[in-house]
C-alpha cells in the first residue's frame, strides 16, 4: 500500500471493498447469517453496527492516550457495550417489531469481532478523524454485506424487497432462503462469487505482467 | 468352534481370490536347460550387502566353485554355475532396473560341467553350527523371491526359540508352478532338507503349508512322508497372499506376528520349499546354490516350461530356449503377477530369487484409468495386514507421508491385494512402496543425525 496517499477517503473506501469485514476478512458472521432474512432487518442491523462502530471508534481514539494498556480491552468492551445498549433502546423506541425480529442479535453486537477488532487495530492508534473514517468505512462495508444477503434471501425466500412485492403474486417462494440453511448457502455463494472475482483479477494482472 | 470348523482348510483373514492361471505349466515336468555361452552373476542378488568377488578377470573357474564371498553377516556367497573363464567383473544390467557389478563367466565349451566337488556330506555327524556354516558357504538364500540369506534366518537370537519350522509351499502367486513341481519331483530332498534344518534349529516340529489347489502334491507328500519325521502337511485354502510368512503362520498356528517383529518372535522360522529342497541337495551332492527351477509362463511365450536353469543364465537365452516370445508381448516380469518385477531389458540374468518369468500380452496389460477413491471398502477387506489402504492411498496422493506412519504404513507387506481389488484402479501398493522408501530414508537420516 502506498502510505503517502493514505487520505481519509482511502481509509473509508478500503472498508467497503478491499478489506470488507465480511467478504474479505470473514468477521462478524453471526449477525450476517442470523438477521439477513429480510432487507429491513439487514438495514437496521447494518446501521446499528455502524453506529456502534463509529461511536466506539471515536471514543477509543479520543481516549487512546489516557487508557493504560493493561485495561484497554476491558475499557473498549465497556465503551462498546454502552453504545450497544444505547442502540438497543433507540431501536426499541423506533419500532418494537424490528427489535423483536432482530432479537438478541442487537445485544450481540457487543461481541462482534469487527468492532473490537477495529478498536484494537485502528482506533487505538490513530487520531479521531481517521478512526471515524475507518469506522464508517467498515460499517458501510458491513452494511453492504448484510444487505447483499438480505436482498437475495428476501427476494427468493419471499418474493419481496423490504416488504414490496417484486416477483409478483404467483411467484413460488423458496422457503429455504429464510431458513438457517439458506443463510449459509447465500453467504457461501457470495464468498464464492468474490473468490471468483479476485481470481479473475489476479489472472488478468498476470496476463498484463506477461 | 472356529478352529474345529476350519481344521482342514486353514487360512488367514482377508486376502483375495485371483484366478490362478497355473494351467500353463502345472503338468510340465522340470526340464534341464542346456548350457549356453555366457553367464552373468550380479554380486547383489540377495538381501543384504553385495558379495565380495574372490576371482579375477581371466581366471578359470569350476562349476560349483566359490567366486564371491559374503561381505557381511547379512550377505551371501556366490558360486560359478558353469566351468569356464571369468570374462569380466563389471557393471551389468540387473533385474531391479539398474547397473550392478557382476561376474561374467564364459563357459568352457569342452568342459563336461561336472561339479567341482561331488561327495555327499554326512550331516548326521556334524554339529548344528557346522551345518550352519556349510549352508552359509553354500550361498543359500530364500528361493521364494525375497532372497534373504538362509543362514541369517537360522541364526536364532539369544533367548528365542524356533519351536516350529515352516516349509512355505503355498505358492499363492498366480501362474507360478515352481514349488508345485519341486514337491512332485524332488520330495525326498524336501524331507532330508527338513531333517537338516530341524537339527540346526532344534525345532520340535515342521509344517508344510500347501494351498489346496495342489491336491496331488498334498497327497504325495502325505504318502511319502517318513514316519519318523515330525512333520505335518497342512492344506491351506487357496487365497492370496497365503504365501506371505505372516499369513502362513496365522493360517497354521493362528498366531499373529507382532507388528514390526519377525516370525521368530512367535517361535517360527519359515523357508520356501525350494530352499528346503536345495538344502537337501546340498548335502546329497555337495552342490551349492548354482541352479534353480524357474517357471517360464504366460500367454506371451511360445513354449511355457518349468525350467531348471543355472543361476546367471540370461533371459534372452531362456526365451530362445522356450521358442521365443509372441509378437504381442507387452510386459515381461520376474516373479508372479502380484509382486513381480517388470523387466526393461532381456539381457538381465536369472537370479537366485527368480521364481518365474511371466510374459504378458496386450490382452492382459490393459491401461486402466484411475478414478477417485469411492471408499468401497474392498481394499480394507482385502488387506491381510488389516490396514486401511483407501486412507493410506489418499494420504499418499497428497504426499502426507508422515501421517501414513500413524496408520501403520510400515506394516504393509506390499502384497498388492489392495491394488488388485481397487475398482477405481488406484495404484495403491505402488504408492505405498514410494512412501515406505521415502520414510525409511528419512528415518535413516534422522538416526544418522542422532547417532
Amino acid at each position, binding site marked *: *500500500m502506498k*502510505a*503517502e496517499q*493514505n487520505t481519509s477517503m482511502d481509509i473509508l473506501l478500503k472498508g467497503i471493498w478491499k478489506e470488507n469485514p465480511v467478504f474479505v476478512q470473514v468477521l462478524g458472521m453471526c449477525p450476517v447469517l442470523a438477521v439477513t432474512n429480510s432487507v429491513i432487518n439487514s438495514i437496521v442491523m447494518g446501521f446499528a453496527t455502524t453506529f456502534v462502530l463509529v461511536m466506539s471508534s471515536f471514543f477509543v481514539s479520543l*481516549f*487512546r*492516550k*489516557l*487508557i*493504560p*494498556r*493493561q*485495561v484497554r480491552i*476491558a*475499557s473498549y468492551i*465497556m*465503551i462498546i*457495550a*454502552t453504545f450497544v*445498549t*444505547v442502540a438497543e*433502546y*433507540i431501536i*426499541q*423506541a423506533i*419500532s*418494537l417489531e424490528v427489535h*423483536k425480529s432482530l432479537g438478541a442479535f442487537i445485544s450481540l453486537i457487543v461481541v462482534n469481532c469487527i468492532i473490537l477488532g477495529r478498536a484494537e487495530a485502528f482506533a*487505538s*492508534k*490513530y*487520531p479521531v478523524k*481517521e478512526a471515524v473514517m475507518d469506522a464508517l468505512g467498515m460499517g458501510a462495508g458491513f452494511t453492504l454485506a448484510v444487505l447483499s444477503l438480505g436482498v437475495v434471501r428476501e427476494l427468493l*425466500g419471499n418474493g419481496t424487497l423490504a416488504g414490496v412485492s417484486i416477483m409478483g403474486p404467483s411467484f413460488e*417462494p423458496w*422457503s429455504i432462503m*429464510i*431458513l438457517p440453511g439458506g443463510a449459509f448457502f447465500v453467504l457461501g455463494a457470495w464468498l464464492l462469487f468474490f473468490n471468483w472475482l479476485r481470481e479473475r483479477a489476479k489472472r488478468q494482472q498476470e496476463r498484463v505482467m506477461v | 468352534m472356529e478352529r474345529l470348523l476350519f481344521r482342514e482348510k486353514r487360512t488367514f483373514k482377508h486376502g483375495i481370490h485371483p484366478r490362478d492361471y497355473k494351467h500353463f505349466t502345472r503338468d510340465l515336468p522340470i526340464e534341464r536347460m542346456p548350457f549356453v555361452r555366457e553367464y552373468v552373476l550380479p554380486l547383489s542378488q540377495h538381501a543384504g550387502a553385495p558379495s565380495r568377488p574372490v576371482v579375477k578377470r581371466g581366471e578359470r573357474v569350476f562349476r560349483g566353485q566359490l567366486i564371491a564371498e559374503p561381505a557381511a553377516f547379512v550377505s551371501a556367497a556366490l558360486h560359478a554355475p558353469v566351468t569356464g573363464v571369468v570374462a569380466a567383473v563389471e557393471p551389468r544390467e540387473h533385474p531391479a532396473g539398474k547397473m550392478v557389478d557382476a561376474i561374467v563367466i564364459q563357459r568352457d565349451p569342452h568342459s563336461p560341467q561336472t561339479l567341482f566337488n561331488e561327495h555327499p556330506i554326512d550331516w548326521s555327524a556334524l554339529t548344528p553350527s557346522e551345518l550352519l556354516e556349510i549352508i552359509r558357504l553354500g550361498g543359500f538364500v530364500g528361493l521364494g523371491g525375497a532372497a534373504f540369506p538362509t543362514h541369517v534366518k537360522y541364526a536364532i537370537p539369544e533367548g528365542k526359540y524356533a519351536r516350529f519350522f515352516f516349509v512355505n509351499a503355498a505358492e499363492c502367486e498366480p501362474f507360478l508352478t515352481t514349488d508345485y513341481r519341486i514337491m512332485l519331483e524332488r520330495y525326498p530332498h524336501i524331507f532330508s532338507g527338513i531333517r537338516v534344518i530341524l537339527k540346526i534349529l532344534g525345532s520340535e516340529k515342521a509344517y508344510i503349508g500347501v494351498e489346496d489347489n495342489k491336491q496331488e502334491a498334498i497327497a504325495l507328500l502325505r504318502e511319502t512322508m517318513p514316519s519318523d519325521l515330525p512333520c505335518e502337511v497342512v492344506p491351506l485354502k487357496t487365497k492370496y497372499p497365503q504365501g506371505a510368512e505372516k499369513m502362513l503362520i496365522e493360517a497354521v498356528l493362528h498366531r499373529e506376528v507382532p507388528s514390526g517383529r519377525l516370525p521368530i518372535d512367535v517361535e517360527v522360522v519359515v523357508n520356501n520349499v525350494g530352499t528346503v529342497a536345495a538344502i537337501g541337495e546340498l548335502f546329497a551332492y555337495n552342490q551349492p546354490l548354482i541352479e534353480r527351477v524357474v517357471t517360464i509362463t504366460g500367454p506371451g511365450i511360445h513354449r511355457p516350461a518349468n525350467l531348471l536353469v543355472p543361476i546367471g543364465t540370461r533371459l534372452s537365452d531362456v526365451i530362445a530356449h522356450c521358442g521365443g516370445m509372441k509378437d504381442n508381448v507387452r510386459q515381461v516380469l520376474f516373479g508372479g503377477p502380484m509382486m513381480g518385477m517388470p523387466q526393461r531389458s532381456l539381457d538381465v540374468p536369472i537370479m537366485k530369487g527368480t521364481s518365474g518369468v511371466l510374459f504378458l500380452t496386450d490382452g492382459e496389460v490393459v491401461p486402466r484409468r484411475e478414478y477417485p477413491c469411492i471408499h468401497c471398502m474392498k481394499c480394507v477387506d482385502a488387506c491381510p495386514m488389516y490396514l486401511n489402504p483407501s486412507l493410506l492411498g489418499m494420504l499418499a496422493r497428497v504426499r502426507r507421508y508422515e501421517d501414513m506412519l500413524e496408520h501403520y504404513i510400515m506394516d504393509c507387506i506390499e502384497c498388492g491385494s489392495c491394488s488388485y481389488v481397487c475398482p477405481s484402479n488406484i495404484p495403491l501398493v505402488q504408492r505405498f512402496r514410494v512412501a515406505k522408501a521415502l520414510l525409511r530414508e528419512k528415518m535413516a537420516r534422522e538416526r544418522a543425525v542422532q547417532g
Partner: protein
Amino acid sequence: MHMHGTGHHHPSAGEGGDEVSSWRMILTMGTIGLLAGLLIVVTYQLTLPIIEQNKAQYLQRAIFDVLPGASRKRAFIVEKDGRLRPEQGKEKHGYKVYAGYDREGRLVGIAIEAKGQGFQDVIQLIYGYDPEREVIVGMKVLESKETPGLGSKIETDPEFIANFKALEVKLKPDMSDLEHPLEMVKKGQKTAAWQIEAITGATISSRAITHILLKSSREILPLIRKNLDMLKQEAP
C-alpha cells in the same frame, strides 16, 4: 502500520509504559464506567416512555384483536393459589390475564396468553375467551418459528384463523375438564363446535395450536369462572 505521513500519530502503546500505577487503571476504568453508566441511564430515561408506550400499544392491539368489541382492558394477576387480583401499577412478575370491556363497560371477554411447543420452536399466542357463551372468540399467534410457507400459515391462513371465532370450550359442571376437549380434524370435516380444522400439509403446527389452547383452557378457564364476578367489575 501504514501511516508515515503524520508523525505524531504514533500508537499510544509505549507511552504509558508498563509502570502504570494501579490507581490510574482504576481511575480510568471508573471514569469510563461512570460516563458509560451516565450515557446509558440518560438514553434509558429518554426512551423508556416511548418503549413502554410501544409495548402497551402492541399488547393492547393483540388483546383487542382476540376480543372483538373490546375497547378497554384491565390486567389481572393470577396468584399461585388460583385467585385473581387486579394489577396494581406496573408489575413485573406474575402471570397476567387481561379482561376486555366494551364502551359500556361490560365484560367482553378475557385475553389469555399461552405458549407451548410447536414444530420448530415454542409458539406463543394469545386468545380471547368469552365467559358468557363459553367460547373462544379469537386467537393470535404472537411468536412462532414454524416452517415458512407451511407451518407459518397458523399466523396467516384466514380459514385457519376462522376456526377461533366461536370455538366451544364449555367446562363440565365440576370444572374438572372441558365438556368436549378441543379436537383437531382434517380440513372440511368439522362437525362440532369444539373442533378445529387443520391446515392441509401443516398438521403438526395446527395440532400444536390445538394442544396449546386445550392445555391453557383446562388450566385457566376454571380460575376465570371462579373469579368472574371480580372480572366483570370494570376498573375504577
